[in-house]
């Protein structure tokens, strides 16, 4: 579904990614784990076109999307829920969701997608007219995911969905993500600091360190690997 070959990204003189390769199969959940500055967010931003790679190729459904503008990539069905749950704080919950469907013109379709999102996160329905900036962290994350879903993506990228959220809500959100992946066979590329949780829900994992892929394997294998255990799972 998504193939990344030898992706390199530089910010000025600093090289953030030194030739990363990864694959996300159709219907799979793949996670990128690693410490701060490993290049996880940069990888997602490069895939969604927000930063221009210096070299490498990104194939989505067999088509080369390297270097396309973000809106062209979204149009192809690749949704990105950015780090720090960037909701539109001054718009209401409803308006945020409508913004997610920005590229959709079919109003019936939008309505059915809204219902799906509300089914997934019933709290959002209760907060429809509230400004998104007044939601709790967990609710904002739900909104960010729901908003990404409104574009009817064929591929979903999530950046740190657990960041700064109450543990109970994190569990709920991850359970919904797994459901979403199963029900719609929607492939998900998940960036997470919480390696334990990420390896639990994913089928495959990549461990990044200073812009390189250190390890990649099935998630169950990574969970038991001594290197991963000591570095990311706390022994």
């Amino acid at each position: 579904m998504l193939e990344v070959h030898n992706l390199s990204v530089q910010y000025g003189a600093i090289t953030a990614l030194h030739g990363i390769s990864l694959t996300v199969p159709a219907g799979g959940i793949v996670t990128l784990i690693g410490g701060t500055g490993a290049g996880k967010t940069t990888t997602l931003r490069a895939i969604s076109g927000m930063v221009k790679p210096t070299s490498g190729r990104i194939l989505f459904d067999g088509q080369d999307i390297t270097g396309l503008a973000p809106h062209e990539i979204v149009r192809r069905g690749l949704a990105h829920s950015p780090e720090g749950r960037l909701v539109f704080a001054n718009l209401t919950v409803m308006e945020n969701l409508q913004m997610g469907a920005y590229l959709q013109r079919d109003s019936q379709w939008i309505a059915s997608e809204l219902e799906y999102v509300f089914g997934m996160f019933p709290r959002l329905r209760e907060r429809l007219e509230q400004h998104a900036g007044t939601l709790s962290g967990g609710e904002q994350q739900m909104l960010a995911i729901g908003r990404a879903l409104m574009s009817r993506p064929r591929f979903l990228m999530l950046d740190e969905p657990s960041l700064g959220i109450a543990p109970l809500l994190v569990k709920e959100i991850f359970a919904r993500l797994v459901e979403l992946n199963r029900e719609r066979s929607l492939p998900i590329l998940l960036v997470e600091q919480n390696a334990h949780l990420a390896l639990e829900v994913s089928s495959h994992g990549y461990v990044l360190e200073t812009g390189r892929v250190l390890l990649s394997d099935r998630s169950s294998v990574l969970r038991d690997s001594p290197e991963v255990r000591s570095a990311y799972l706390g022994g």
Partner: protein
Amino acid sequence: MVFPVAQRWLLAALILAWVASAVSSSIDPYFLDVVMGVGVSVVLASSLNLINGFTGQFSLGHAGFMAVGAYTSAMLTTVVAPRLGWHPVLLQWVFFPLSLIAAGLLAAVAGLAVGAPSLRLKGDYLAIVTLGFGEIIRVVLQNMDMVGGARGLTGVPAYSNLFWTFGTAALTVYTVWALLNSTHGRGFLAVADDEVAAEAMGLDTTRYKITAFGIGAFFAGVAGGLYAHLKGYLNPGGFSFDKSIEIVVMVILGGMGRHAGVVFAAILLTLLPEGLRELGSRSVPNPFGGAAWSLDWIKEMRMILYSLMLIVLMLMRPQGLFHRSERRRRGA
């Protein structure tokens, strides 16, 4: 359906401006001048609100766009118009509006020229670039002999009247309002709120920013044309950084991205200095007997009072005079 109602309001405003214009000969000329100045301010503030308020791009170059428009239309009416040999009525009612449109278009071109390369910049950086642009315009005008240079351009015919100033003001407010309430309107707000998230939603953020800059600059140019034919005299000094700041203050005071708030602030901030000037020419009776107390000090302190009011307002109501109230209704 909101549109027909808004269009009716626009029509009503235009008719009102027409009627007011017809009876304007009986109005005190000083008062008329101030009132027309209010109309020009509304155009400037409302158009800047599209850029700074709704789209969140901090521009400090609005006086520059205004200058482009002012000189364009003034050159058209002073140099080109006399050669046409048209009847004065035709000049005021046909040629003048055409010159305003030309002024707006040229200002929009200037807006796009400065906007296209610099809109990658955000916040303070964009502010500095637009500030530099405004200064360049002013310095270029100051050194252009064709437009009078530093001496200024005199003899601009007084074509601006209540109809043109208020008609344009109504049209500007309506255009900005209609744009924000169109299918794509929320895109501007999304860009202002969070550019990265807006990009992730599939918005072409650059296109939104350039559209805002182009339309904002267009109306600034038209406002410049109105101003030129209101004052009858243009001087590059009148389009300095201070003028840009004055417009920015109207937008901030009215509450960034509030339609009515910004219109109100534009009216208030144009009338306030005049009001204080008027107050300063009066005196109050001395309660202890003797000579009346002159309020002359207000004249000298006018700018200080004005600044103090702004400081107090910003401390008490940093979100602007009008906040939220009108947002609630939008999109409901």
